[in-house]
């Protein structure tokens, strides 16, 4: 019952709290890597005709910035909270499949390392430069990504890395669906679930439905590049637009995979710091579900410039405008939650309110893309870059930071410093607006995305310099946060069980929680158990020894097989594919037959 320590205990852990921490720190490192890539991009664009990086490196930087931020930073940061918080919120001892959960993490880590190795292995491919990093954009449009136009292994690293990461996402999706549906404490009906757990469930359904589509699209690309098929090749009767359809059929649900968890976080933070229940809980939940459904019917708004014809354009334009309705409903519910509340402006609330404000700006520019004539002017310009950064940085990143400040005391036992937190928030909010707001104008004035430099005649030089200053302000904000984290380890205020006076079950136990979570599984009678019935759900002393599952090596061993198989394709080494497959199968068999009690 005491928590084991040491390296082995981390490598073999199946505890959702530890896996959550592993996810958090790994994803946070990738977040910094993606941030450094962004700073290099902004340094290059600070002045016209600049030569800090060459065009080829620039292509790699924007491709890896997008890919890293989406697949290696924001998604896994959300998953870190799924892991740490969801079992606590629903009153469970762990997730439904603890070893599958460990497998998800190791596959994610190895997939991220695999893709980033491409920065350093150029000499192995006689590339004439250090890096063979992916360079076709995070959306990897065919036919640019076909072997004919991308000869080196760059795109192979990208498509194989994404395949590996897809395995992790799928496994995680199944795990959290079953955990939330099946492991709820007695009395925790679906409509009593905390909204964050609800959004985790909705996101998990999106994961398991959207990832098969990108998997197949990537398999087609892999076959085209390596085995001579013609899926995206016009010369043999194929069609590169098929890639766009399949990619965005995945890609738009992916947008909601990125934003719904952050919406879940602020739906927890706002009620806690307003001292009143979430306004219109059911409507917020149903809006989340509706957004997920409608997210499947809007993908072609990414493709207006392809020329799909007036009917397709009209349909996708309408569905895109419609999806703003459930989103707007949520925003009004959040504002109404604050209305008349006993508001405490602690750092988590600042980030949550920042989320609402920034997401509204991003949402409004998003609605402008919904109109095909306007979109044709905006496509491939910095206007779109401004939009995605307002929703993904102003939305997802601010939402995730709200979650970090909110749940940090639960995860570590200590509160992050409030003063530093507020400095972090304001620097970040000002920094992101300085960085991203000018991009609207830069784009409308005609500066294209993904081009490594621009002419002074375009008249966007000053605004680009301003934008770069903003990017570095964000970097300073991140340094403040990192300093806060380091400081908190030793000097942080001890949190206690429920420092924010939260209402949900994760606050019913010590911080950090004991390895078994709940000494006795509580019985829940309301949506806000700690406000309405604290005496019945507060942690009690264990009545006897509590069984905690042992660790297992096999999820990690099985995970090692995947990057080996991917590496085999790049190295053209069939034997390596067999070695990878053998390790994967061996790991799965050992895993299947080891004695393991949940």
């Amino acid at each position: 019952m005491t928590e084991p320590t040491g390296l082995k205990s981390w490598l073999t852990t199946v505890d959702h709290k530890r896996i959550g921490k592993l996810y958090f720190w790994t994803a946070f490192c990738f977040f910094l890597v993606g941030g450094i890539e962004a700073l290099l991009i902004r340094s290059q664009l600070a002045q016209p005709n600049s030569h800090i990086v060459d065009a080829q490196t620039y292509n790699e930087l924007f491709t890896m910035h997008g890919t890293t931020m989406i697949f290696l930073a924001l998604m896994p940061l959300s998953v870190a909270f799924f892991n740490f918080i969801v079992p606590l919120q629903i009153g469970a001892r762990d997730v439904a499949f603890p070893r599958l959960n460990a497998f998800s993490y190791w596959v994610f880590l190895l997939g991220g390392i695999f893709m980033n190795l491409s920065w350093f292995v150029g000499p192995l491919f006689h590339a004439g430069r250090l890096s063979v990093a992916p360079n076709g954009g995070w959306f990897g449009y065919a036919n640019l990504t076909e072997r004919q136009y991308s000869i080196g292994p760059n795109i192979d690293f990208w498509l194989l890395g994404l395949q590996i990461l897809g395995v992790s996402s799928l496994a995680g999706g199944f795990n959290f669906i079953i955990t939330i549906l099946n492991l709820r404490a007695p009395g925790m009906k679906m409509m009593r679930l905390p909204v964050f757990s609800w959004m985790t469930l909705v996101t998990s359904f999106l994961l398991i439905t959207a990832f098969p589509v990108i998997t197949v699209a990537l398999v087609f690309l892999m076959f085209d590049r390596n085995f001579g098929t013609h899926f995206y090749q016009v010369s043999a009767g194929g069609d590169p637009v098929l890639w766009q359809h399949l990619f965005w059929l995945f890609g738009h649900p992916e947008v909601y995979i990125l934003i719904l968890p952050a919406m879940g976080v602020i739906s927890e933070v706002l009620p806690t710091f307003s001292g009143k229940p979430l306004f219109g809980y059911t409507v917020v939940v149903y809006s989340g579900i509706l957004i997920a459904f409608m997210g499947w019917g809007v993908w072609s708004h990414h493709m207006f410039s392809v020329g799909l014809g007036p009917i397709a354009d009209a349909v996708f334009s309408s569905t895109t405008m419609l999806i703003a309705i459930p989103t707007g409903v949520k925003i009004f519910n959040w504002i109404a939650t604050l209305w008349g509340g006993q508001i405490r402006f602690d750092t988590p609330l600042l980030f949550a309110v920042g989320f609402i404000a920034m997401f509204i700006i991003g949402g409004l520019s998003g609605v402008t893309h919904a109109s095909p004539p306007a979109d044709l002017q905006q496509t491939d310009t910095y206007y779109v870059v401004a939009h995605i950064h307002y929703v993904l940085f102003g939305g997802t990143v601010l939402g995730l930071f709200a979650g970090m400040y909110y749940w940090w005391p639960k995860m570590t036992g200590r509160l992050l410093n409030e003063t530093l937190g507020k400095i972090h928030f304001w620097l970040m909010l000002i920094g992101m607006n300085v960085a991203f707001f000018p991009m609207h104008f830069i784009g409308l004035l005609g500066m294209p995305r993904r081009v490594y430099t621009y002419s002074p005649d375009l008249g966007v030089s000053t605004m680009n310099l301003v934008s770069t200053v903003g990017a570095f302000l964000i970097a300073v904000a991140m340094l403040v946060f990192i300093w806060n984290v380091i400081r908190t380890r030793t000097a942080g205020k001890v949190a206690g069980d429920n420092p924010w006076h939260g209402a949900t079950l994760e606050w019913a136990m010590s911080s950090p929680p004991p390895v078994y979570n709940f000494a006795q599984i509580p019985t829940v009678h309301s949506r806000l158990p700690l406000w309405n019935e604290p005496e019945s759900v507060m942690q009690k002393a264990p009545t006897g020894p509590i069984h905690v599952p042992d660790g297992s090596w096999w999820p990690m061993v099985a995970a090692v097989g995947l990057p080996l198989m991917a590496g085999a394709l790049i190295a053209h080494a069939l034997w390596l594919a067999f070695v990878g497959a053998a390790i994967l199968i061996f790991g799965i068999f050992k895993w299947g037959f080891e004695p393991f009690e949940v």
Partner: protein
Amino acid sequence: MSHAAHAEAGHQTSMGLDSRKMAFWAFIGSECLLFATLISTYLIYKGKSLEGPFPHEILNIPFTSFSTFDLLMSSLWMVLALAAVQRNDMKWAKVWLMGTAIGGLIFLGGQVWEFSHFVEHGLTLQKNMFGTTFFVLTGTHGAHVAVGVLWLLTLWVRAMQGKLTAKNAMTVEITGLYWHFVDVIWIIIFTVVYLIQ
């Protein structure tokens, strides 16, 4: 197995359903999207080949009907295997598990023969859009059958070792879910690719 331990420890699930079985249904839902994408792509590129061999020139419906019949029968044997395990009749369980695996192997053998026959007649992955979409679609399905065969043989070995009993019926039931799903997908592929040319 963890399920048995789970049940014996008296844990109740919220939905009253076995977690592994639910996860497997979610997995099947996810797989539906995978095959839907593959089949849609096949349909989109139907008739887009610039040169032959074209489907009507090369597909052998009587032969594939036999493979299809064999795979359908193996689903029946899978049902019988599960029924035998559930009543703890391990003698027949071994027979039907092995029968199902052999059914899968016969199907795979048919596919190997069909693929090599096509290649001899000039239809390769690279030849035209039909080859490109046909081999990737049916090959993906074949890989699923191969995983199922490996799984069934594993269960058979466990049964021979005496480690598979009625307590593990859920494991066999989930294997069956997978096997039937792969079978249903084949019915769709057979209809779309072979019957509706």
